[in-house]
């Protein structure tokens, strides 16, 4: 279906990533947000607080991130599309409820505008050091989807995608921005509402007698009902059966967590989006995401001017990780170069997927700033000279 025009601020804007993310949420149909102030993310909800009473919806600033991360889920079960916004310390607090959303299959979006860590770290400066946390931060076996915009325009476009994935797969989606993308101001084009595709809630059409809250019809995603519709369903974070009732036995556990995993992994080809350039014939492929990909672009250009055969793979989806693509490339290229604003996170996934068929070079940066193109260029040159693995 198409976006509700009431939430779409059609036009050409000059806004930063945080603001664009808010507009993306509204365009996607989000009408509820619960938040807690934390730099550098606060502007997203500040804008939402200002916009939503004129669009029709609710924002509430909760007393802490523990509350915000579950208040939004209550709103989802009450019928709304909902999200929250945070940064490192708040993201850590939200982990239990990200797990709850995954377990109860509550469709929602968690925006993390990454900043320097660990702990209080660098509140106003960028990092990309929450990438593994986005995937593994909560306890237990579960899958999430994580997207990484690299511009304010993508903050708008990909937020819509995030909500769409959340609804399609009934999963919490992590929207992994960083402080630079969040605070950089660029042109953002917001199209007409009828040009924007949104995925509606997967609401059941079954009768009360036939409806199974966690039963599937052969696909792996159950249909949802909302509170107040007469379905009398039960939702619990305990291991549960198709009725939603706690059923804490190994067979039920096995069936449930494997389905939570496979509903995402089986669709990984479609979910894992990336931007590729000149991969054919490349000796070295630079794998990057977020703000680092903007710097890497420059390094790649200079390397090509110097005659090196350098391909680009920009991760738009970080999780599920595009293993298949890396594996294919590893058979053909000498090396991967992975610059990140951390001491090595997604590079581990690249290395794992490459399985020794190509070398992997990390270009680490502890955060607080961005790489210089020459830092990345240096490693591209080194990687080009390496012996084939």
């Amino acid at each position, binding site marked *: 279906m198409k976006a509700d025009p009431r939430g779409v601020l059609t036009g050409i804007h000059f806004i930063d990533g945080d603001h664009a993310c808010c507009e993306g949420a509204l365009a996607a149909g989000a009408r509820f947000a619960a938040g807690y102030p934390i730099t550098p993310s606060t502007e997203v909800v500040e804008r939402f607080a200002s916009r939503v*009473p*004129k669009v029709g919806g609710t924002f509430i600033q909760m007393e802490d991130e523990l509350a915000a991360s579950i208040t939004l889920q209550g709103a989802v079960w009450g019928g709304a599309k909902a999200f929250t916004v945070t940064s490192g310390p708040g993201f850590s607090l939200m982990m239990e409820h990200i797990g709850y959303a995954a377990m109860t299959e509550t469709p929602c979006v968690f925006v993390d505008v990454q900043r320097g860590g660990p702990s209080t770290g660098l509140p106003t400066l960028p990092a990309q050091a929450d990438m593994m946390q986005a995937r593994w931060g909560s306890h237990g076996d579960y899958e999430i989807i994580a997207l990484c915009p690299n511009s304010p325009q993508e903050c708008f476009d990909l937020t819509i995608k995030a909500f769409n994935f959340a609804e399609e797969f009934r999963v919490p989606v992590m929207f992994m921005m960083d402080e630079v993308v969040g605070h950089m101001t660029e042109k953002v084009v917001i199209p007409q509402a009828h040009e924007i595709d949104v995925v509606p809630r997967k609401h059941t059409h079954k009768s009360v007698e036939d409806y199974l809250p966690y039963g599937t019809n052969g696909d792996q995603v159950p249909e949802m009902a909302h509170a107040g519709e007469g379905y009398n369903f039960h939702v619990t974070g305990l291991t549960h059966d198709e009725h939603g009732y706690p059923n804490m036995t190994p067979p039920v556990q096995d069936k449930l967590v494997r389905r939570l995993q496979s509903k995402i992994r089986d669709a990984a080809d479609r979910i894992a989006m990336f931007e590729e350039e000149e991969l054919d014939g490349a000796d070295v492929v630079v794998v990057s995401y977020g703000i680092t990909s903007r710097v890497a672009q420059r390094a790649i250009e200079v390397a090509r001017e110097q005659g090196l055969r350098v391909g680009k793979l920009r991760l738009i989806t970080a999780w599920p990780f595009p293993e298949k693509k890396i594996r294919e490339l590893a058979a053909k290229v000498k090396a991967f170069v992975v610059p990140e604003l951390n001491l090595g996170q997604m590079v581990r996934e690249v290395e794992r997927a490459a399985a020794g068929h190509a070398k992997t070079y990390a270009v680490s940066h502890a955060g607080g700033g961005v790489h210089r193109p020459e830092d990345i260029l240096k490693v591209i040159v080194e990687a080009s000279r390496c012996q084939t693995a």
Partner: protein
Amino acid sequence: MSDSLIDIDTNNSAVNPVEPFLRTDRMPHIWCPGCGIGTTVNSFARALIDSKIDLGSLALVSGIGCTGRVAGYVKLDSFHTTHGRAIPFATGLKLANPKLNVVVYSGDGDLSAIGGNHLIHAARRNIDLKVICVNNLIYAMTGGQTAPTTPDHSTTSTNPYGTFEPSFNLPHLVEAAGAVYVARWTTFHVRQLSRSISEAFKKKGFSFIEVISPCPTLYQRRNKLGDGLDTMKYYKEKSKVRNGAPTSEVGLSMTGEIVVGKFVDRDRPDYGSMMRAQFTESLGDKYVEQDEKEVPVCS
């Protein structure tokens, strides 16, 4: 020679009046013999009958603990959430669909320890929630650890030599935070409890009903206070109904008097009304109230 059992008469087509409110396919429940939680659920169900509330509009949210399991046994839209966070979840439900009657049904540890922050803020905001706090003075599900409500000098598994912290006076706490309806009963006061719950349904704003309940397996046993029935007799003997009593005076001790009654019943606008009033005043015509059921993008 044992008595023969008179089971349900085969001619007797009588149905338990609370059966329509229970997930009978999940009975018998997990609560111990003599535990009072089931009794509170009984009172709750009878309040639903008496208040003639539209069950389709009701949602029940619980946290973690023995009382938290109530959500799984009532035949309503029910949510068993995370420890301490039933109130913020319920807040989200209510704000997204203001037509819902949202009940929070949870225990003393869940609501006043890990959930304490959310308890006071929801009361301060006067979110329209009906909170039933079953207070068995202990963390029961996890094996009998000290709770903020455990009376002084009690023996618990984490205070094996006796507690020495003052315990919370929950009615006082929530009144100070802003609750508009505050009552306390025990599981002995089945009718009064039902009546309070019915009154809370008619009330707009943050209502808090504390129910003192036995935990014979842990609290009573470790403190040599007998079983569930002994505790019910203690409630009967030592409770004093003092409606309107100042909440500062209703603190509990291990074997002393239990002040019960309706302590606070006042009126002030609930969060939703205040929100709408503020936006109307600030934005005038530009204010767009939330769609009735957030339907535009949900099929």
